[in-house]
Structures are given as C-alpha cells and as structure tokens.
C-alpha cells in the first residue's frame, strides 16, 4: 500500500484533476476552519464571562435594608429598616467563624475640587475590608486602615481616572482635595480591572462620613466576605442563618420579601456560569452541525468523483486491476487529500483565533482558543468519515462489471 508506485499513481491523479482535488479539499478545509473558529469564539465568550465576574470577589454577600410589607410582633408594616454600626459589630461577633471581612458602604455623590479642576464623583465611605470586595489594586500610597476608621481621619483614596481628571499628569499623593465642602488628604491612588467607572470612585473612612453627616451611626448597606473554604453549600447555609439573625434583630417577619435583601454573589456567579455553559452547549451543537455538514459535503464530492471515474475504473479493471487495488487507490487518494486540507484548515483556523486575541473584546469575545486535542480529533473525525464516504461508492464502483463501466460516457 505504501510503495512509491502507489503514491506515484495518486500524485498523478491529484495533479491531473486539480478541480476535483480542490473541491474535495476545500470542503474539508472549510469545515474544519469553521469548526475551529466557532469553538474558539465560544471559548472566547466564556473567557469574557469569567473575567467579568472575576473582577469582583465572589465570596461576597451584599446586605440591603428595605421597607417591611408585613406586620410583625406588634410592628406595623411599611416600616423603614436601617442598618447601623451595631449591626456591623453584631455580625462580626456572631459570625466570626465564617467571616473574612465585613464593611459598610455609604455612597454619596460629591463635587470634588482640586485648584481649578472640579468634577462630580461617587464617594464610597467604607471600612478597610472593602478592598478585598472590589479587588482594588493600589498603584501608589495605601488603602484605608483601621486607624483611619478609629480616628475618623479625613483621608481619601482616589481612582486612577480621578487623579488623571483633577491632577493631569501630576502626582496626587499627599495633596488636599475638596470633597463636598470638606478637605481630604489623598493617601492613595488605585486601579481596578472592572472598567472606567470603577476607577472614578473615591474611598473615605465610613466613620468620617458619619461624622460629616451629623455624627450618625447609620450605614446604607453592609458587604461581607465569607471564607471561601466553606464552599457553595456553606455559603447558602451562612446566608440563611444571617438572614434569620437580622430578621430577629430588626423584627422583620421571616415571610416578608421586602424587609431585608441579601444578594449572594456566589449564587449569581453559579447562575451566570450556567448561562455561559448553555451558550457553550448551543455553540457546540452548531460546531458539530458544521462538522456533519462537512462530512456530507465530502461524501457528496466522493460520490461525484467516483461517478466521474467510473470509466477509468472500467479501463483499469480491464487491464487487470483487482477490486482491492481500485478501492485502495481511491481511498488512499481521498484520505490523502482530506488529511492535507483538513490539517491546512485546522492551521488556518488556529491562526484566525490567534490573530483575534482581544480585537473582538467589544463583542464579548476575548482570547479565543481551542484545545488542540479537540481540533485534531475533529480533523481526524472528518478524515475518517471522508474515507468511509469514499469507501461505499468506491466499493460499488469496483464491483460493477468492467463492461458496464467501459460503456459509461
């Protein structure tokens, strides 16, 4: 099967039948190219998804107070619920074993000025733990610390774009800025992978904010991070007991849907991952469809090729070619073509994916890639089916009487 003569015959046949070779090869190459690209783009989509949700920590609960909609323990409905510093302390005390950090967040928009430059920014009054929640990365200076909270310092940590807006190219560190009428000293500049909006925040100690607002002890919302070791089930259990604890403390009916909200990022993440997986499944079905279309295409071409060669087969049989020799040479030729072009299609597909990189980031596709094994398996799959598709008509052609084949015009 693998002597020089056989290959000589095959190369001659390929060389002298360029259109046929091109058609068969093109089908295979295109099939593999589309398959590789499609699978790659799906992976790119998943990359974006993961990155999107990995920007913020996922071991996080957001607690929001609401307004009761059910009367409970003598309290009327429609009562406004508020969090305060004692809630922070209670959570810290009662759930220490689950907790990584707990931080309040009080958001206020404030006109911020430095010399002639001014702009409106969102300030977030927080505790040091907030840094873990947002995965804030310090470029220079430092983040808020416990001393700042205790001393109610007028320190501010500003985003990279805040510095750019207000200071231009100059260093903001240790400068004083006016935030809503109070002067704060810039102690740090941060960056955040979450996008431009995330880099236009200003962080200040929550106790300072409370002091400014007539020494209140209210907080808008509470954010807490649990230890990742407790896992998904542990997080769900923690959420349930936290919910019960706060409802008991604030006299909110356990059935009340509006009194208290807990947003569980881990749960959301899981749902989003499921969404991404469904997308991936749909794309896989399309990719598989492409592959099947490729197989059907190559089968059609093989049928056509063998029909076209019927007379040649008849001549060869009259010259003493055995059916085995006829089938062998046709199959070897088709496998050779599909292998070469399949490999070519695969390489082009990989090159396309590589060249995309982050160019399609706006369309939520980032760094598309395909597992090489998957690409190779798909190619082999197509080659095998191409061979099978060639074998059936080749066998039939080899079986027809030479006299019938010779009459074929």
């Amino acid at each position, binding site marked *: 099967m693998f002597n020089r003569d056989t290959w000589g015959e095959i190369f001659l046949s390929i060389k002298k039948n360029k259109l046929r070779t091109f058609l068969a090869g093109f089908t295979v190459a295109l099939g593999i190219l589309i398959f590789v690209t499609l699978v790659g783009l799906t992976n790119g989509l998943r990359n974006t998804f993961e990155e999107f949700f990995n920007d913020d920590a996922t071991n996080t609960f957001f607690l929001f107070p609401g307004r009761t909609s059910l009367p409970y323990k003598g309290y009327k409905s429609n009562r406004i619920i508020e969090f305060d510093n004692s809630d922070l302390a209670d959570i810290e005390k009662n759930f220490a074993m689950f907790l990584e950090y707990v931080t309040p967040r009080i958001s206020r928009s404030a006109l911020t000025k430095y010399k002639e430059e001014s702009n409106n920014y969102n300030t977030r009054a927080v505790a040091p733990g907030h840094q873990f929640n947002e995965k804030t990365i310090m470029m220079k200076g430092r983040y808020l610390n416990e001393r700042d909270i205790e001393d109610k310092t007028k320190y501010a940590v500003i985003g990279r774009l805040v510095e750019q807006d207000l200071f231009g190219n100059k260093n903001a560190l240790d400068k004083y800025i006016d935030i809503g009428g109070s002067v704060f000293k810039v102690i740090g500049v941060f960056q955040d992978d979450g996008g431009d909006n995330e880099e236009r925040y200003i962080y200040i100690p929550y106790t300072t904010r409370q002091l400014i607002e007539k020494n209140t002890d209210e907080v808008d919302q509470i954010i807490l991070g649990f230890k990742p070791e407790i896992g998904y089930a542990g997080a769900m259990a923690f959420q349930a007991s936290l919910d019960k604890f706060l409802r008991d403390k604030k006299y909110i009916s356990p059935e009340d849907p509006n009194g208290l909200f807990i947003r569980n990022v881990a749960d959301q993440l899981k749902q989003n991952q499921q969404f991404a997986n469904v997308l991936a499944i749909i794309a896989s079905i399309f990719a598989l469809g492409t592959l099947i279309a490729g197989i059907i295409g190559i089968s059609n071409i093989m049928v056509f090729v063998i029909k076209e060669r019927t007379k040649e087969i008849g001549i*060869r049989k*009259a010259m*003493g070619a*055995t059916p085995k020799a006829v089938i062998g040479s046709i199959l070897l030729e088709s496998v050779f073509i599909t292998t070469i072009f399949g490999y070519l299609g695969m390489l082009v597909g990989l090159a396309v994916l590589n060249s995309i990189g982050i160019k399609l980031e706006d369309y939520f596709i980032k760094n598309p890639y395909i597992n090489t094994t998957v690409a190779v398996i798909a190619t082999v799959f197509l080659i095998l089916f191409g061979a099978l598709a060639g074998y059936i008509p080749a066998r039939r052609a080899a079986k027809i009487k030479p006299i019938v084949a*010779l009459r074929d015009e």
Partner: protein
Amino acid sequence: MIEIKDLHKSYKMGSNSLHVLKGINFTAEEGELVAIMGSSGSGKSTLLNILGMLDEADSGEYTLDGVPIKNLSETKAAQYRNKFLGFVFQSFNLINYKSALENVALPLYYQKVPRKERQEKALQYLERVGLKEWATHLPSELSGGQKQRVAIARAMAAEPKVLLADEPTGALDSTTSYEVMDLIQKINDEGNTILVVTHEEDIAHMCKRIVHLRDGVIVEDKKVKQVRASEYVQ
C-alpha cells in the same frame, strides 16, 4: 487456445429477457487471426466480452489456455485478464490524464513489474507501434490512429495469450484503419492469437478466418486468404 461449448447469454430488459447468444461452439488455435463478423445485435460484442471475462455467460463452457473460466471472483477475473488477455476497444479507452507511456505501462503496473522495467518495456512497445517520440504526450494530443496504436501497445505490453479487439477500426478512416490492421497482422505474424470483432468486410478479409454471427448463432465459419494491409499502406 480458446474453447467454447454451448454458450448462452441473455440480458434482462425490464420484464423482457433478450436472448443474445443461443448456443455458441467455437475453437481457436494458437497463432490464429479470427474475424468475428455480424450485423449489430448479432451478439458479436457480447461474445467478445465473455471471451474477455468482462462479462459472464449464463451457461456453457469456456476454457482459455487449458484453464476453465467459470464462477470467477472479481479478483480472480482481474488476475486472469491481466495474465491472459489484451484489449483493444473501438473508443480506445485510454486514461486521459496519463501520457501515452503511462497508459502502456498500466497493465504492467498491475502485474507488479518494477518501475524501471515497466518504463523500459512500455517504451519498447511504443517503439514497436512507431510512437516512441509521442511517449510523453497525452491522449488528447494524439490522432485517432495514434490513440489506437497506443491502445494496441498497451494490450501487447502485458504479453497476453490472446489479443481481443472490439471494432478496432470502427472510429477510424480507412487509411488509418489499414495502418492499424497492418500492425495487428504483424503482431499475429509473431505468433500471437488475435480475435477481431468487426462489421467491415475489408477488415475481416485481412484476417485468416472469418466467423459469421447472426441472431446469436454462428452461421458460417471459414478460412480465408489473408489480404495484407501493407498493400494499402504507403
């Protein structure tokens, strides 16, 4: 060399059955040059196809060089064709993407003759039909007579026991026909057994024996005085 006894063949045409050969008895010795004649539909081509193992008889005996030809598998038939028979067709049946040399070498390829030897032998046979200079040309670059000469070279290259020619001059003008017949006569002079199917009287008379077929039976079988084709060839 060839022995046929009570050969029958019929073709199914839908619900009808067409009885083409109705009991043929025929013998050909080594070195004979036999013309099989008959009008179209007389069964002459069918007979040749059965002799050439391209088709199968329904009943009857066929012995070729002492070997009974019966119930052959496709593979066996292919081997016998390769070993015993050379074919020349009316429509030449050259492989159009192969050069003259490659066409002639094809039966040798299936005889598993080594490449070098194959090329040499093919060239030698091309020389014998006077087409050595055309070895690298494709069939499309050759005239009808040249094509048929290539086909004859191809049939001879395998050194068969019997050469079967089905209307070898059917697609050629008379001058070219005589050239081809001249070649066939020369090959016969060297002792090869040749069967020629034709419906042309002048071509038939260039053979040594004429067998007339009509409606599937042999009606006449006579020896004739051979007319040498070289008389007409300049």
